[in-house]
């Protein structure tokens, strides 16, 4: 449940960052489908936790070290929203200026997704297809024996 709220909040963050399409997908897919999958898994598996969670010093050290390295990395980053940042110089202006005439759709994200980067989307569909087959292979026997466990 908390995870669904987290997803929904991140969708709100995307809206404030002008990424409405991403926010839409995150709200539908992240808050919707992911949460349903999580809850379904929790319903099928045993969720009791007997041992209390202990703080793991080594994991802490690794986490803090990673955070420090990333913080050091952001020092070289351009300011958020800076129009002179390298990310805004290369292909994006062309997409924004030409896609209206070339594709004829006002939504630039849609024209990039479906046309300029259509092969990426094809690859995405391939990944989803593979994952779907994987899930079916893994869970096929479980669905027929739903509720029965081998060890009990």
């Amino acid at each position, binding site marked *: 449940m908390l995870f669904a709220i987290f997803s929904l909040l991140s969708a709100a963050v995307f809206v404030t*960052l002008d990424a409405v399409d991403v926010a839409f997908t995150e709200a539908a897919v992240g808050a919707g489908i992911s949460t349903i*999958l999580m809850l379904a898994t929790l319903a099928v598996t045993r969720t009791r936790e007997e041992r209390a969670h202990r703080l793991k010093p080594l994991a802490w050290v690794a986490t803090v070290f990673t955070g420090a390295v990333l913080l050091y990395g952001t020092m070289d980053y351009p*300011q958020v929203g800076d129009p002179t940042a390298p*990310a805004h110089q290369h292909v994006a202006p062309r997409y924004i200026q030409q896609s209206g005439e070339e594709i004829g759709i*006002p939504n630039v*994200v849609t024209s990039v997704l479906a046309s300029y980067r259509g092969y990426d989307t094809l690859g995405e569909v391939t990944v989803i297809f593979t994952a779907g087959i994987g899930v079916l292979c893994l869970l096929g026997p479980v669905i027929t024996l739903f509720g029965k466990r081998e060890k009990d």
Partner: protein
Amino acid sequence: MVHFNYWVVIVLIMTGLYVVMAQTNLVKKVLGLNIFQVAVFILYISVGKLAGGTAPILAAGFDRYANPLPHVLILTAIVVGVATTALALALVIRIDKAYGTIDEMEIEELDKEQE
């Protein structure tokens, strides 16, 4: 406030990383991976943000739009992320079926008993 977005991303990445490393419950590990993933999404969208710009939907009266390319990449990443989450959770269900537990430590103990 110059790099505020990036700091939020770093905190989320640290949270996700710690959850993945320290939690023994496999479902919680998958959840940690998801938190990490959302952090990367926010990083990309922050890079695409343009001060004073609007969402990249062409309309009369606007000439500054956010960079659409990161949006497209993250749209793809979100959907792929759900596919991998589904696969991971399917694996967790299989592990639960085979061992009767989804706790990493208990699985390790069961493995040692069998040897």
